[in-house]
């Protein structure tokens, strides 16, 4: 298990981490969320030993990871990059060997990944000769080619088309099913909701919310209500009820324990033919907004 314990890190005047801490368990997919500049990348770099925290510690199975432990981690940096003029198979073999695999095992694993990502026929192409999408796939393979016990993926879904997203999600699920811990950051919250089981939300260098997706949903004091009358959006007339308008113009109402839902329903029925009356737990976007706004 990976544990981040009370991590602090400043870069000059900028506070990147301000007591961040959470766990990532084996076999689980953890979505690591937060606004830009919240400290996600710095926290991930601390895990990989690329950044030394000012205080606090990173623990792997209860003790600080050595370089040998870290070779069992897989990392996909936010700033993608491989050797542009190196052939992709050689590149995968190189990174696998650098992580401790024998040359023979590295070659076998590289070929498996090329096969799996449908790149076997491009094995001897230089990276720079590949399309952007294929370069992304090689990047993923380079991160995972040594069969890591823990995968740290910084924005793995960014820049992928829907098919790419599906195959990336499938690979992450497969890895987790095989027992690897997975920590990935993302801005695409709907996507995270589909893929991950655990969520950590970080804001201003501090973890503001963490737990399983279900726990967090059930733990929220809010529900979201959407009502349509006669096929049209309809607004209740109740003091203190707050409307949220999404980017698409979709209007929803925040329901707390004090909101008289039965009154809303009565008003709607009185207004006409109720075509929609949806009372839902918060989506991940809602949880994110709640947590970050706190």
């Amino acid at each position, binding site marked *: 298990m990976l544990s981040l314990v009370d991590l602090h890190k400043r870069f000059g005047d900028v506070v990147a981490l301000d007591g961040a801490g959470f766990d990532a368990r084996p076999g689980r997919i953890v979505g690591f969320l937060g606004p830009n500049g919240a400290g996600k990348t710095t926290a991930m770099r601390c895990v990989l030993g690329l950044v030394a925290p000012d205080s606090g510690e990173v623990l792997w199975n209860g003790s600080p990871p050595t370089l040998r432990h870290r070779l069992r981690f897989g990392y996909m940096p936010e*700033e993608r990059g*491989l050797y542009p003029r190196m052939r992709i198979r050689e590149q995968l073999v190189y990174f696998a060997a650098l992580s401790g695999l024998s040359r023979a095992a590295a070659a076998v694993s590289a070929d498996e990944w090329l096969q799996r990502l449908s790149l076997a026929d491009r094995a001897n192409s230089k990276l720079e000769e590949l399309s952007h999408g294929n370069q992304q796939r090689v990047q993923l393979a380079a991160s995972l080619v040594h069969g890591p016990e823990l995968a740290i993926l910084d924005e793995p879904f960014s820049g992928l088309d829907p098919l790419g997203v599906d195959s990336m999600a499938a690979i992450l699920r497969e890895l987790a099913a095989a027992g690897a811990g997975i920590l990935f950051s993302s801005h695409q919250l709907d996507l995270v909701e589909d893929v991950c089981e655990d969520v950590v939300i970080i804001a201003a260098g501090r973890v503001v919310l963490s737990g399983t997706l279900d726990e967090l949903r059930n733990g929220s004091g809010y529900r979201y209500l959407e009502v349509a009358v006669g096929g049209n959006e309809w607004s209740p007339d109740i003091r203190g009820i707050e409307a949220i308008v999404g980017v698409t113009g979709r209007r929803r109402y925040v329901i707390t324990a004090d909101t008289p839902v039965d009154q809303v329903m009565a008003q709607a029925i009185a207004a006409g033919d109720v075509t929609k009356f949806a009372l839902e737990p918060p989506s991940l976007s809602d949880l994110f907004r709640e947590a970050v706004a706190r």
Partner: protein
Amino acid sequence: MSAVRQVFFIARRDFLQRARSKAFLVSMLIIVLLVAALGPLLALDDETPGPYDVGVVGVEPAGLEASLQSAVRLFDRRAVLHRYGSRAAGEAALQSGDADVLLVDGREVVWLEEPAPQLAAIVTGAVGETERRRVMDELGLSEDDVARLMAPSPLDSTTLREPDPEAEPRRVAAYAGNLVLYISILMFGQFVLMGVMEEKSSRVIELVLSRAQPRHLLAGKVIGVGALGLVQLVVFSVAVLIMLSLSDIADVDLTGLGLRTVATVFGWFLVGYGFFSVLYAALGATISRQEDTQGVAMIPVLFLLPGYFISFVALEDPDAAVAVVGSLVPPLSPLVMPIRSITGGVPVGEVALSVALLLVATYGLIRLGGRIYRGSILRIGARVRLREAWQASQR
């Protein structure tokens, strides 16, 4: 996974990638062509020069041919006399290169461009001798007197020192070896700089450093590129040694001299490249854009050039004070000591001191450059100032 194994994989990658690069392949091709072109030049130099072609027009002094042949023998050369019917025909022969000089009526010498001093002395001496013979005939001197006047008893000659037939070949070898060293250190040092910079500009550095320590990456790169430098030196040396063993200058063991030169160049490449590659790597880590390369690539050259200039002093006088000091002080020594070693006898202790001083300087540079490398290698974008890099590495 041992660090040694990681360093090996990193070195292997850098070696293979650079070996396939156009810059390296072109440089190898140039070397092979250069050595191939040098062979015939050496062979030409070895040939004895051909005879002088002396054109004669108009009145020919009596006994000119005999006088000419005896005068030209003093210079260990031969002469061939060509007689032309007119001055115009003689000048045409000068123009076409069939004659080296034209003697007109025994009074005037005509050259194509500049007079050649040796040939001028030969022709003037020969004409003078015919004139003296004519005057002696007029005076009615006996054959004995003529002989005594024309061939005075020769001076005894003694030499204090045997000439060293190897002196000139040694100078040439020292000069060539030094040039190869200078180019190799510069070229492979710049390969290290480019390699470090490219890892930053392609952003692959973060992935690599998530697997390997900066110092292991640095060591692997320096070793990989350095091994490639050695391969190039081996190819070059083998080509030169083959060429030398085929050419043949009397009294000189060219192959032995070649082997000594090659051994000196190899040794000094190892220690000299060791120092400069770390300097190049540290500087390469401070930049991540191609356009910043020129600015930082100049800095090691400023350290390398003084040694290169002092090496010319050492070539003329290996025991000059500046040459002796330069051959001991890093980072001048890698380009000055080899010249002194090849041209003259340098005590082993002095060479050992020079190498030891350079190794100490390299160790200091590894400590300093390693910190700069660590402090700047993950910072992408604008050039990292050395002070910032130093401070960042302390964190």
